[in-house]
């Protein structure tokens, strides 16, 4: 089964594709990434509201400034999530963000891929792929088993496939 999270390749991704290159997988990262900044922002907001009546002056300002920074952090995470994709093409694997391509491997250079799923990953449906001997990990990937199999399929093509086709 081919995993295609987006019906069409986002424009952010397509601008980095070569003319002869075909995007096989394009997925956003798992929304579980929102949980830590969400916990922080909600906790801070709750505390700021709770302690505001007993604070004044610089103390009050400091409490709300910290809350604001943590809410901005949540917003930044959201913007980052919207514009961040893992892309697997017929030639390479890369992560694209608004700022450009941040991580890239040629498929020919990838010798080893491993999948790790934590308890939380199994609970929420995300996993971590570890690439190659450099042990570069990409976490919070949705549909981890499908992604893993799809990438393995690209790495290890069936030698008899072309014979069958003939």
């Amino acid at each position, binding site marked *: 089964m081919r995993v295609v999270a987006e019906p069409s390749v986002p424009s952010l991704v397509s601008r980095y594709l070569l003319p002869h290159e075909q995007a096989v997988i394009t997925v956003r990262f798992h929304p*579980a990434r929102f*949980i*830590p900044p*969400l*916990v*922080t*922002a*909600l*906790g*801070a*907001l*709750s*505390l*700021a*509201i*709770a*302690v*505001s*009546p*007993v*604070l004044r002056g*610089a*103390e*009050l300002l*400091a*409490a709300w400034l*910290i*809350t604001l920074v*943590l809410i901005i952090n949540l917003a930044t995470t959201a913007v980052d999530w919207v514009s961040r994709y893992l892309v697997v093409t017929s030639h390479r694997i890369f992560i694209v963000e608004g700022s450009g391509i941040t991580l890239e491997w040629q498929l020919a250079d990838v010798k080893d891929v491993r999948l790790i799923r*934590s*308890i*939380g*990953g199994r*609970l*929420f449906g995300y996993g971590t792929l570890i690439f190659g001997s450099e042990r570069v990990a990409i976490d919070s990937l949705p549909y981890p088993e499908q992604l893993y199999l799809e990438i393995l399929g690209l790495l290890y093509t069936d030698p008899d496939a072309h014979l069958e086709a003939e």
Partner: protein
Amino acid sequence: MIVSDYNANTALAILRSAGYVNTLLGSIIPLVPILMPWIALLLLWLNQMIASLLAFTAALLISPASLTGKAFLSIAHHDLQAYQGGGWDVLSFLLAALAALLLIFELVGFGIRASARSVGLAASVAIVPIMFRLYPLPASDVFYTNLLTQPWLPAETITLTTHQSVTGYVLESDQDWMEVLRAEDRIVVQYHTSQVSSRAMCQIAVVASERPLFPLINTHSELPLCALPPPAQGPGGVLHPRQVTGMTTCQTAGRRCE
């Protein structure tokens, strides 16, 4: 320079008398407890949870606080009694409940380290105002100015043979001469040991009140407070110490002025 009241001559005299290493350590060590709470906060924001926790614990035990533990708890109790959140209570509670629920997910999904970081960051909303009360910002508060101007040496009341008392810090003492940094005007003076009838340790008043929030040893020092008389001047029976720094500098490196 702070201890010498920004007098370069006095600073050099202290450096020569106390030695470079002692002066360096003596300058740095008093800063550690003062800066410890802010270092702890910085570590918290830099995601160094264990180090931050240790630094906060150290701050509670060693950093001079502007309030005693009892006074702080009393203020907290008073704030709690006077607290009237109104309708905001409900919103605050709902947000806290939602955050707690998500925290459980985070604990399961991301582990204890990430969860502790989230809790620490959120808690800094309450920690920072508390720190403002307990540990005022070093740059803007007279609390630290008073503390930093105190040298690392114990204060002493030196009684001279003329019954004149001098409060200061003994920088160096040998069989013949004693070098003293006078507390009131920060001038280094020398007394011949034959001029000194007695020495007694004492406590500068401003330093005596600076205690940590939770002192490990709860007993108060029995040292008497230092008396700070005006600088000794005038003719007659008053002994004239050798003034090393100040208006008349007569000490050069390596030898005493005659």
